[in-house]
């Protein structure tokens, strides 16, 4: 089950992750949910957040110039 959830999560785009987080929060904000479910949702939300962070891939990029032969070099 957990493995499946993880796989599913890997497929999610940034946008989908955001939507997923929104949904997760909505479920979590109902304080009557079972404790175990709540912890599960929290964990999934945190994992989605981490995925978002990974997707942004915070490395500053140099502008590349695309040559006619398909190669790139710095602009």
């Amino acid at each position, binding site marked *: 089950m957990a493995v499946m959830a993880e796989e599913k999560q890997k497929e999610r*785009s*940034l*946008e989908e992750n*955001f939507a997923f*987080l*929104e949904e*997760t*929060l909505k479920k*979590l*904000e109902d*304080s009557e*949910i079972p*404790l175990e479910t*709540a*912890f599960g949702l*929290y964990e999934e*939300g*945190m994992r989605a*957040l981490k995925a*978002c*962070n990974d*997707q*942004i*891939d*915070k*490395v*500053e*990029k140099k*502008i*590349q*110039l*695309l040559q*006619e032969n*398909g190669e*790139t070099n710095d*602009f």
Partner: protein
Amino acid sequence: MAKNIYSVSQVNSYIKNMFAQDYLMKNISVRGEVSGLKAHSSGHIYFNLKDEKALIPCVMFRSHAALLRFRMKEGMQVVANGEVGVYERDGKYQLYVRALEEEGKGNLAEEFERLKKRLEEMGLFAAEYKKPIPFYAKTIGVVTAPTGSVIHDIINVTTRRNPYVQLILCPAAVQGEGAKESIVRGIRQLEQYGVDVIIVGRGGGSIEDLWAFNEEEVAQAIFECTIPVISAVGHETDFTIADFVADLRAPTPSAAAELAVRDVHELEERMENFRRKLQYSIDAVHKNYVYRLDGYRNRLEKNSPRMQLDNMRERTMVLEEKFTQFLEWRLAQERMRYQRIWDRLYPMPDGWLKRQRMHYESLRERFLPTAGRILQNRRQQYGRIAERFRPDMDKVLQEKKTQYRILLERMKGRSPLERLSGGYAYLADEKKKAVTGVAQVKVGDIVHLRLRDGRIAAKVTEAKADQADVDRRRS
């Protein structure tokens, strides 16, 4: 011979002026065949336009020549638009060409409308073919001139919004000859390279400047591109065919960058927000459970035998305390009442009263028997005296009566006041009561002295009994 003589310059200048003032000459389109074509190294193009009968020299300066969308050839049928003016130095007039079109191509606006209609009918603008711009593009391809404000605007906006985005620039000629081929090649190269979104554009200009973006080949390339394309041609008011075909039209190159590049700061803020909310929610859930747990524990404890015992003990203690408090209150009340009575009784010298009474009792007991005896003695004495005096009693009585009468006669006409002469006074206190002893007055009392001829009010400064008198009273 005419009387005025002019210099050559004056004549040429005059003629130039005449041309300049002519409205038609200022903006004229001329159809003809290109001949004597000379492209000067300065960038100006010199040629003639001719038809079967006539010829006009033409010059197209570099600034205009650069905008030509095709290469001029000898014998080409063209329509030149410009101004007919005089070249004073050579004394010749010529056509200063601003724009040139190949004959048969028609004018640009018409051509634009025609192409637009045709492509629209082909479905190239249809909404169902529009690809969505990715939510988060990591790699962005740009097809535009490698110099100029457009690429700089895009770079600026991109790095400001998201420095983590990869920009791939595919340099292209965006106007003049070869522009459309260059743009098409750029789009295809970027597609092959694999970017998330492509921006195709150039800065503002005339319809001729922007013309490459109205070419069918460019429209086709944009349409066929499997990667979403954002067009950004000219200013906000400029519309090109490329704009209609593109998946998204941006009013300016900067706007295109904003549409293509998501603001990473905003994303980070949203993520931070999510993180906070997640934390908050789980905390809330947790707190809620702890709270409920506490509730159960409390209820359980409340019903435990030990708690019940404690409760009873506490109730007993409370009652006890209440009772003690009540007793203390009553005691205090009684004490207060007693105090009040005591306060009222205190001025009465209790012991003194008792002593006086006892004293009186003892006197009575002492005197009662004595009194009887004295009385009897006196009676006996009296009896004896009476026996002794009885015979003379009437005589004595007569004498006394007479004496009394005489005295009465003597006292008649004499007021008691007469008796106050000779330094005697009658003493009365404030209440007009006769003062008969020192004990009746105190120092400071006012006393009234009645003299024979009036009264004196006096203040007592000393009240002292005669020693003998005091002694007698004491015994």
